[in-house]
């Protein structure tokens, strides 16, 4: 019990350190909030407007079961910020430690190696939650998205999917440690996972074999459950099965990710290459 408390304190200390670094670069922090708006939301809404008939997104009603493009894409941005927490929250932090030459000394402390990734993911999830709150506030003010009241169900969904995001964090951390210069890989995989989760479009428009990969991602089920609850869209799978898939895929990602992280850490320790970058 004492060890668990110590590890929790260490994870929180890592998260605080990451948040402190993030907040030092204020313009970058502001940009991180605005980026999903100008890079995903506005181009998406305006592309939707190009296909609108009589001011209504009748095509989206056929494929997603709603004509509310703004609400649909707003919820998609939530998946985007969550994925970014898992991908970039961990990748950036490990890369910075590698480049600064501080990873080896940090790993000499008695804290477990997994705890560092947990701390980095907590920091990433905190930005994700703050970003989401700000985005929702902007959405309500600018576009009149009436989602907030119906998003109470998002709390348990976010709690479950956080486990999967932690698993993604472990996997990304292992990849960064092995590849060292993994920016393109992380960026590309983040983009692919966001797209396959259905952030910008319903996955029904994807080819069937790609759709099966989507079903294996916890973010797909989290996002779909949120859309079902907030917009009344038809679910991808029967609801009990969708909740089950959310739980199963989240736990699977955590187990596979943790295994990959520990195996990589062991390999680097044996090879003595932790300090290389």
């Amino acid at each position: 019990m004492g060890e668990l408390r110590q590890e929790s304190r260490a994870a929180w200390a890592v998260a605080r350190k990451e948040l402190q670094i993030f907040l030092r670069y204020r313009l970058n922090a502001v940009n991180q909030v605005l980026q999903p708006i100008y890079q995903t939301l506005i181009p998406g809404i305006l592309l939707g407007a190009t296909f609108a008939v009589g001011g209504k997104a009748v095509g989206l009603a056929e494929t997603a079961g709603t004509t509310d493009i703004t609400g649909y894409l707003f919820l998609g941005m939530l998946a985007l910020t969550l994925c970014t927490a898992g991908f970039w929250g961990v990748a950036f932090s490990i890369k910075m430690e590698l480049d600064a030459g501080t990873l080896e000394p940090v790993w000499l402390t008695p804290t477990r190696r997994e705890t560092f990734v947990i701390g980095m993911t907590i920091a990433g999830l905190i930005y994700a939650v703050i970003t989401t709150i700000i985005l929702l506030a902007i959405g309500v003010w600018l576009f009149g998205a009436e989602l907030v009241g119906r998003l109470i169900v998002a709390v348990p969904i976010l709690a479950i999917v956080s486990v999967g995001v932690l698993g993604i964090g472990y996997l990304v951390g292992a990849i960064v440690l092995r590849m060292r210069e993994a920016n393109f890989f992380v960026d590309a995989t983040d983009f692919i996972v966001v797209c396959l989760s259905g952030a910008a479009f319903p996955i029904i428009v994807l080819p069937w074999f790609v759709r099966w990969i989507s079903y294996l991602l916890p973010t797909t089920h989290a996002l779909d459950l949120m859309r079902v609850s907030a917009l009344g869209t038809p679910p991808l799978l029967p609801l009990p099965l969708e909740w089950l898939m959310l739980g199963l895929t989240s736990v699977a990602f955590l187990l596979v990710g943790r295994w990959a992280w520990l195996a990589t850490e062991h390999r680097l320790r044996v090879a003595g290459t932790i300090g290389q970058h």
Partner: protein
Amino acid sequence: MTRADLVGDLRAFAAATRKEWRILRRYKGSFLSFVFWPIALPLAFVFQAEAFAGGREDTMAAFTERAGTNEVAGFLFVGWATYMWLSIILWGPGTSLRDEQVRGSLEAVFLTPASRLVVLFGPAISQLIWAIWIFLVVGAALQIGFGVNIGPFEAARGLAVIAVGIPALYAIGALFASVVLRFGNVNALVQGVRGLFTAVCGMSFPIIVLPELAQRVALALPPTYLIADLRSVLLAGAGLGAVIGDLAILAGMGVVLAGLAVLAFKRTEQYARRGGKLAQY
């Protein structure tokens, strides 16, 4: 300026181009990125467009009426290819100066008798090679994936439009380079301007769907004309004569912006040299 000065500057320009190209080749991962992004980014919007169309004829008719073409994939791929080229240009001169600053070589480079314009525009040629590469990848993806055929005449007209757009876009890049010398890191500013271009210049939509005020902002920005004209000549079969008015505006913007960029860069360089700030970052 004597003839010898001019020849010397041209040699320095060629040397700067070779150096940048050599650095680019060292990072093989960037080649992969220049194949992945020109396909993946527009493809995501093609799927989004498919969702918005919903397989209905009336939605496709609405798109054709507003966009002036029924080639949804072509429309989006050309828009996002221009966006990627624009990103390279916006980051290019500023990032190159910043890298020299961080490596500690900027002061040494500024001690040479070469013109400052060589320092500023030296990386431009290697970036132009990337731009051509992006458009080639997009052309191949459109032909193989969507059966959109861009013939040699359309391609030649597209290159002419790009050539007219180059001064305006490089001038914007040079303005950012001045900001780098003055303030150091400008990532957030570049992201913000790129965001403005994405939001109003019509990468994924025709600007006709924007509110009136946003349309006016769009018409004051060079990328709007570049994207619209590229789509006209590549997808709608328009000749250069049909877009000559737009090209004249784009060329005019290029002259004004290039003048501003040279002035801003000279001023900032003087400030940095007098204050001993060239090596600070």
